[in-house]
């Protein structure tokens, strides 16, 4: 009798403890697109380290070993398959997560289109649509699909990973026609979104990560120009600090991960 009631109490205790730590209802929830590598993966790691609940999404997560490893390492990381160009999929995931408030929607997934495709005089027009669909329409559709989830949360932030390359005032050497157009377009829709959702208390951030050494910038790394690359860890560490401070009064501001403003 005594042993079974002791075991029963132990079991009950363990169960409650498990529920308490797994849901961690105090902790904010972040949904990250493009979490399989690069800064997306690093955002997942650093927010998970904080004990936040992460919904890490990627196009083919079953193939992403690093992301799978993170999910195995942290209880608070879950994975969803999500291609930001697949609007039906976005709607399905939004529906699946209907009761889940999302404190930060981090629109991180993006592509460069590759430098060699965007050289004036021999532009490869085939990549334009992909660049636009992923970099502009993706974040816009994600924002539409998850606005209620974000508005239902405490932090209410939609953060868009843009780039200094989208700054018209900063254009120095000619290159990356489609990529730059996509980031300028992203900046424009998000400036408008900031206005649109302000009365719901939702903050829309437009923040660039600076120059980071990941697969994404391999086109720049190849140039061997001794550019000041940050590691993903450095970039994301600073970026998260900027997100922390980015409030409703900042909504629609175009910043870099140092907190400085970019010119439009």
């Amino acid at each position, binding site marked *: 009798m005594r042993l079974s009631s002791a075991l029963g109490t132990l079991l009950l205790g363990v169960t409650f403890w498990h529920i308490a730590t797994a849901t961690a209802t105090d902790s904010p929830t972040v949904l990250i697109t493009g979490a399989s590598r690069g800064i997306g993966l690093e955002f997942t790691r650093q927010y998970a380290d904080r004990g936040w609940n992460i919904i890490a999404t990627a196009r083919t997560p079953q193939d992403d070993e690093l992301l799978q490893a993170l999910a195995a390492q942290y209880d608070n990381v879950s994975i969803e398959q999500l291609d930001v160009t697949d609007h039906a999929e976005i709607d399905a995931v939004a529906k699946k997560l209907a009761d889940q408030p999302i404190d930060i929607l981090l629109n991180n997934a993006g592509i460069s289109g590759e430098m060699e495709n965007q050289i004036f*005089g021999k532009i490869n027009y085939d990549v334009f*649509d992909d660049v*636009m669909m992923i970099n502009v329409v993706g974040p816009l559709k994600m924002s539409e699909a998850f606005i209620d989830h974000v508005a239902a949360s405490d932090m209410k932030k939609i953060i868009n990973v843009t780039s200094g390359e989208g700054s018209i005032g900063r254009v120095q050497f000619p290159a990356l026609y489609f990529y730059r157009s996509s980031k300028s377009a992203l*900046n424009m829709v998000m400036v408008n979104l900031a206005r649109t959702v302000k009365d719901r208390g939702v903050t829309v951030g437009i923040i660039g990560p600076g120059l980071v050494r990941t697969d994404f910038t391999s086109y720049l790394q190849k140039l061997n120009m001794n550019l000041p690359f940050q590691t993903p860890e450095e970039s994301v560490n600073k970026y998260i600090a900027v997100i922390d401070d980015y409030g409703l009064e900042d909504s629609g501001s175009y910043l870099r991960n140092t907190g400085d403003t970019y010119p439009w």
Partner: protein
Amino acid sequence: MVSTSRSKQLVQLVALTTGLLWFSWTEAATVLVTGANRGIGLEFSKQYAAKGWKVIATHRRPENPATLKALSAKYPASVVIERLDVQDHAMIEDLAKKFEGEPIDLLINNAGIFGSLTNRQEQMFGTLDHTLFDSFMHTNVLGPIKISEAFLENIKASDRKQIVIVSATAGSFALNSRNPYPGGYFYKASKAALNIAFVSLAKDTKRFGITVTILSPGQVKVEKLADHTIPGQISPEESISGMIRVIESQMPTASGRFFDYKGKSRQW
């Protein structure tokens, strides 16, 4: 005497400069205008034809539009009508091939779409019709880039070497970060996208002596807006004559800048 010969030189220099300026002002040149069948494009075509320029007026209607037929009848020696859908890259390439070797002084990328005036929800957050996105980007951004690439040699071969694109302050961050009108997401995004693309293009073509100018025409009372009165609207005549003055005054050193029809420098 030293002063006499120097003043003589000065007079000669002034005469030469005036002569060159006069020459360049009155010398007939060639302009290609996209979306020339109505609105801003039509007014550009009319005014350049009246200045004695050769005008290659393009449109994408199945038949030559009445407006361009009338213009061509008025200026039979100098107005040429060509069919061109700026979203169709094969058509762009074919047209460039047709005009291969012919200098084109001025390329006016005017063809563009604004979106439905009655069904504004399709460009408003929450009811966005994402299937429209491509047409905005392909018409307002990709087409102009492709045309500029395709006709680059024609422009290089000319005297004036100018590329112009019709943008809009409605697509400027200056306006949108302060007081955006609701909606117009795709239109605004396409203007931001073309602005940065053409600033890059300006830098890419500088070495050829080409001047790229991004223009805001103002709020023009065009045919499409016949039933919509917007405060501050101006006539096509006023807008285009202003823009032409701006185009005429451009120097290669100012390539890649954004001006309105009054010649005022605009913020992105």
